[in-house]
């Protein structure tokens, strides 16, 4: 901010500011003399009143001096300018960043934030003269400048503002500012960036603009009042790739971005079928609504969850593509004496019909494509545990049958690198019982045993085992027993936490165990494989989810040639594609604009489907506070007119006139204060005793 005086020639008038002081001193110089009977009581009164009188005198003097100063400044005709202060004759370079992100679609009343922002941007540009240069950046996920370099065609920019459309993208403020700085680099004159945005807290909080010192930043906020909103933030399928005939769970996270509880109906649309559930959302809270969907065939299909319309409809619908698998791919790794167990597992998988065992080596564990949907480890001694942890972290369940003589500590370190407490030299010990150990179900309510609840499939714990690892629950990672031996030794141990690990302590070696010979073994193995992929806290694999403004990529496979691939948008129109030079014919789309399901097509055949969903970060419409906006290091303006005025210079004389009047009023008020003070002791009449 800078001030220029148009009548600077009148600066000598400033000497008049001492006038009140001179008058003050002069007025006190020669008071008239009045004879009085005794000044003793006046002196007593003075001692009391001078304590009050002196500050009042000073206040009066200050008020009078300030009033005179305001009047003098008024005649000097000061003009206030924003950043740079180059004054009236300097060329200005203004880059207007217009927030076109999804949150700007909120309607504060009669018009959306974006419409307000466009009007403010137009107002700012209207304040520029013919010698000034400007550019407009439409900011979303990727900033788009109207001119590649600063230009003087303000009319065209205003036309672009009229043609500008709101996007469904999330705002990237840093990218927009970097582009603006690049545009202003090398320009002569005053440089300004003006951001017109709702300053949505979820986007802007914590953001610190890094600008060269010669560039001024002005912020114009368009958010007004409350913005209650409800949104669907997540739609996920559990398991991520269900099998035909399996009942999948579709999870919908619904959020309430308002200070009042809301009752919302969530509608799940699967093809033409619709199901609805009601949810009561606490203030600023979330709820997860689940839908069950039985998978009929190994064909992908789209599901969409939606809310009843609210004032901000963009985030009221969300899509997901369910891609069922025709077979469950089970990776099998065996070593040492674990081969017998692995063979029994493989035999069981083949008996299931819908599971395909693939024998792997530990080296193959780095490639998730080779592992499949579930990994079974038999006799793996826990060495190089980072590979298995990598598998677990990718959300692939692992069933591990540890070998004999393995350090017990590795049971822990497979889940975490932290070394366990206690004796690190202890190893797993084999113990045998000629009569055999009996098994029992420890957690009959677990989904693994749900199929056995009716008794149709027998007792899942049937069979005897003559040998086992002598482990205790203290030696195992935190978890719960699914099946245990009668003495409490864990036989099947489900670890807790985000990593889906199951420990298997039931040998399937012929002669030592009869479990694998039981009719219940195959259903038990099948249910274990299915349940291991489901609903473990935090282990639900998130489907690939794009947001508007991103580019979708098609990697060429054997199914179709790259040149015959096209991308069809939710409205049936094709999205322009271009070939990636570095990826052997892969196709990449232009940034997608519309949320919905996009189909990669070869001719009329759908090759793949991708989902573009509303960016969840745009759903919380609360803006930054004024203090936080000032914290960006910017000058804040309430409207584009203010910015234009600052650029063109604001004449301060009306404000100074008001200031002078107010000061004079205050001076009058202080001077008249004594008149309104409560009267002293009433004058004595005849007092007698």
């Amino acid at each position, binding site marked *: 901010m800078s001030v220029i005086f148009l009548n600077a020639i009148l600066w000598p008038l400033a000497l008049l500011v001492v006038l009140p002081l001179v008058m003050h001193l002069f*007025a*006190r110089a020669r*008071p*008239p*003399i*009045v*004879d*009085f*009977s*005794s*000044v*003793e*009581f*006046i*002196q*007593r*009164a*003075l*001692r*009391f*009143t001078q304590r009050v*009188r002196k500050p009042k005198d000073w206040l009066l003097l200050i008020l009078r001096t300030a009033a005179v100063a305001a009047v003098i400044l008024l005649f000097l005709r000061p003009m206030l300018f924003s950043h740079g202060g180059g004054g009236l004759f300097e060329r200005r370079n203004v880059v207007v960043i217009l927030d076109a992100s999804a949150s700007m679609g909120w309607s504060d009343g009669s018009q959306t934030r974006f419409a307000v922002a466009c009007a403010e941007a137009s107002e700012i540009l209207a304040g520029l003269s013919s010698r000034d240069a400007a550019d407009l950046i439409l900011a979303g996920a990727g900033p788009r400048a109207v001119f590649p370099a600063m230009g003087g065609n303000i009319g065209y920019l205003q036309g672009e503002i009229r043609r500008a459309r709101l996007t469904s993208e999330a705002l990237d403020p840093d990218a927009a500012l970097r582009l603006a700085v690049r545009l202003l680099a090398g320009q002569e004159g005053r440089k300004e960036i003006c951001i017109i945005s709702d300053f949505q807290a979820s986007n802007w909080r914590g953001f610190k603009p890094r600008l060269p010192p010669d560039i001024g930043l002005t912020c114009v906020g368009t958010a007004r009042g409350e913005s209650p909103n409800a949104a669907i933030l997540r739609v996920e399928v559990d398991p991520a790739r269900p099998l035909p005939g399996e009942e999948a769970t579709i999870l919908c996270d619904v959020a309430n971005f308002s200070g009042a509880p809301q009752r919302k109906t969530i509608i799940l649309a699967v093809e033409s079928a619709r199901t609805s559930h009601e949810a009561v959302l606490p203030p600023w809270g979330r709820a997860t609504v689940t839908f069950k969907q039985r998978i009929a065939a190994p064909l992908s299909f789209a599901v969409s969850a939606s809310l009843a319309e609210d004032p901000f409809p963009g985030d009221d619908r969300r899509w997901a593509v369910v891609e069922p698998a025709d077979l469950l791919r089970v990776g099998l790794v065996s070593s040492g004496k674990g081969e017998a167990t692995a063979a029994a597992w493989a035999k069981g998988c083949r008996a299931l019909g819908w599971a395909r065992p693939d024998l792997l080596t530990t080296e193959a564990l780095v490639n998730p494509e080779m592992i499949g949907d579930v990994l079974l480890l038999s006799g793996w001694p826990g060495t190089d545990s980072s590979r298995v942890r990598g598998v677990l972290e990718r959300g692939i369940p692992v069933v591990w049958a540890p070998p004999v003589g393995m350090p017990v500590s590795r049971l822990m370190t497979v889940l975490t690198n932290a070394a366990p407490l206690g004796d690190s030299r202890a190893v797993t010990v084999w113990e045998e019982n000629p009569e055999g150990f009996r098994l029992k179900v420890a957690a009959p309510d677990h989904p693994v045993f749900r199929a056995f609840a009716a008794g149709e499939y027998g007792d899942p714990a049937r069979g005897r085992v003559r040998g086992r690892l002598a482990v205790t629950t203290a030696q195992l990672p935190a978890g719960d027993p699914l099946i245990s031996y009668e003495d409490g030794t864990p036989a099947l141990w489900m670890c807790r936490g985000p990593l889906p690990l199951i420990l298997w302590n039931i040998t399937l070696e012929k002669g030592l165990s009869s479990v694998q010979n039981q009719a219940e073994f195959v259903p038990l193995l099948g249910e274990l494989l299915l349940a291991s992929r489901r609903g473990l806290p935090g282990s639900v694999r998130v489907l690939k989810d794009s947001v508007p403004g991103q580019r979708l990529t098609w990697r060429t496979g054997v199914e179709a040639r790259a040149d015959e691939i096209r991308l069809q948008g939710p409205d049936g129109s094709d999205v322009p594609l271009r070939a990636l030079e570095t990826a052997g014919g892969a196709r990449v789309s232009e940034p997608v604009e519309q949320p919905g399901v996009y189909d990669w097509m070869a001719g009329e055949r759908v090759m793949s489907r991708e989902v573009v969903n509303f960016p969840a970060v745009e759903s919380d419409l609360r803006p930054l506070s004024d203090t936080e906006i000032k914290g960006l290091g910017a000058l804040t303006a309430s409207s584009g007119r203010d910015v234009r005025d600052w650029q063109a210079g604001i004449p301060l004389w009306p404000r100074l006139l008001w200031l002078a009047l107010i000061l004079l009023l205050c001076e009058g008020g202080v001077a008249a204060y*004594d*008149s309104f*003070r409560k*009267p*002293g*002791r009433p*004058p*004595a*009449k*005849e*007092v*007698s*005793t």
Partner: protein
Amino acid sequence: MTHRRFQYLRPEDIRQLAGFEFSPKAVVEGYFAGRHVSRARGSSVEFRDYRQYVPGDDLALVDWRVFGRTDRFYLRTYDHETSMDCHLFLDSSASMGFGSNPSKLEYASFFTACLAYLVIRGGDRVSLQLFDKTIRTFIPPGSTNLHLNGLLNLLERNQPGERTSLAESLRHSFPLLKRRGILVVVSDFFDDPAAIFSALGPYLHRGFKIFLFHVLTPAELELDDKGLVSFRDLETGQRVTAHTDDVREGYLQAMGRHIDALRDLAVRRNVDYTVARTDTHFYRLFERLTQ
């Protein structure tokens, strides 16, 4: 009565005073028989008490009826009615010259002259003492018209003098008063209240009935709005510059405290105290004296 026209005792005043009688209920001591009750036993019609006869007593005072009943000699005693001495103390310090139409001194002189007239008309004796920081003039008690003329002449010649020292003057004048009676002090009391009542102590102890008339002008009681002025003390010449609006509240509080202190001490010492505003007629002060 005199035929000369005096400034402070005008014919219209004399006509107005015809309805007044100065007869305060005070026990006095005097030489002449009069209307006032004396502590001395004497001859009058007011019976007081019996006392036993002692040799030397006048046998005419023996109550023979009592002797007939008791066979003992008892004398009847009567209250001695005597004339009253009224001592007028008039403050003539410089501060009494404050005010106009009338000044405090003029107002006090009117009151003093009329009071002296009333006393002499009642057959009692009146004395006058003019003082400032000390006794300027003292006229001993007298009850004749000639004496009254002298008092009035003195009042007319009187001018405001120097600083007030009421307590000092009271101390000096005590030996001058031979008999107890009525003491009337007319002053603006610009002195320490405790010192004033300390000086009045001997008078009270001797049995004087004391009346204090505190003469003040409205300007002193209300402090007129004069704006920023330099106040000059009439007694000391000291100057104090102040704005009347600023100091009025404090001044009135200080003046109020001074009056309250005088009144409280007066109540405690059984002294009659009256504030006399110069904008009220001095006749009203006689009502205080005759209550």
